[in-house]
């Protein structure tokens, strides 16, 4: 997997992401500065990591979404290239219009930093093929603006097309308001675009990939991507 991790000023999860990509694929990802206008040749997945690009000024991800490199990311996605946005990366993808909707302030206003449970709704996407549909994984989350909001038509379309791939649930996969800790519409934790090649998600799978850190539940996302890309090659 030839990954390109985009670096915006103010992000802080790029090293965790790069470490995980290297761990799973054996290849060092390219770290691409936001002012660049092109992605490295042979990039087969673009990753927008988490953090606080531009200090969350204006709206989370708003300024990063309009940076020069994003035109290249948009063109890459339009050709079917894989794009993964985690946390601030998800916010940036929404602000850039690559995914619908917006991440608003958590319903209870608190920044929430803890492990959460996600139900994987589908296993037939490049991002989730490392899991079984219905499987519940435990991964960390750390955000103040993760409350997914979109107009009713958009949400109905997302649900109708099966584009909600990750949902906040209890450890046994049950939907309940207490487990939907940020108040997201329909407990949405992650969605894909219409074509299925762009995934945005709030929690951090890249932080649960080594047994030494207590859990490897996030690893399936990256091994699935590696498998998908090596088969496509």
């Amino acid at each position, binding site marked *: 997997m030839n990954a390109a991790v985009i670096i915006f000023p103010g992000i802080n999860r790029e090293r965790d992401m790069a470490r995980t990509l290297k761990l799973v694929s054996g290849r060092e990802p390219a770290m691409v500065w936001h002012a660049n206008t092109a992605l490295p040749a042979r990039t087969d997945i673009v990753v927008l990591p988490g953090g606080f690009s531009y200090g969350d000024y204006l709206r989370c991800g708003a*300024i990063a979404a309009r940076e020069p490199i994003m035109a290249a990311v948009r063109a890459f996605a339009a050709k079917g290239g894989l794009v993964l946005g985690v946390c601030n990366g998800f916010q940036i993808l929404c602000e850039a219009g690559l995914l619908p909707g917006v991440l608003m302030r958590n319903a209870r206003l608190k920044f929430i930093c803890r492990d959460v449970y996600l139900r994987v709704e589908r296993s037939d996407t490049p991002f989730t093929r490392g899991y079984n549909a219905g499987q519940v994984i435990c991964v960390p989350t750390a955000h103040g603006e993760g*409350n997914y909001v979109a107009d009713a038509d958009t949400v109905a379309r997302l649900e109708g097309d099966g584009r909600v791939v990750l949902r906040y649930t209890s450890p046994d996969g049950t939907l309940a308001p207490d487990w939907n800790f940020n*108040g997201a519409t329909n407990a949405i934790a992650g969605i894909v675009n219409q074509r299925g090649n762009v995934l945005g998600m709030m929690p951090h799978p890249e932080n649960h990939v080594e047994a030494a850190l207590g859990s490897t539940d996030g690893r399936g996302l990256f091994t699935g991507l590696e498998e998908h890309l090596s088969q496509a090659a």
Partner: protein
Amino acid sequence: MKAQVTVTLKSGILDPQGKAIEGALKSLGVEGVEGVRQGKIFDLEIADGDRAEVEAKLKEAAEKLLANTVIENYHVKVIG
């Protein structure tokens, strides 16, 4: 010339910050507040020009960056 862009949340969009402010006003004893919605005001200094052109420029700024039209409405005003 001076201009102002106001950005507010669309009706129907939940505003947890507005709700928290509303609660704080109640606890401070400010009576009769029936709702609070939080928004943003941008004061801009624009090179002098035709009013209609400046308004068009402000709308472009609002559409492209200042507002996220998925959840927000904007209003532009040329002050002069």
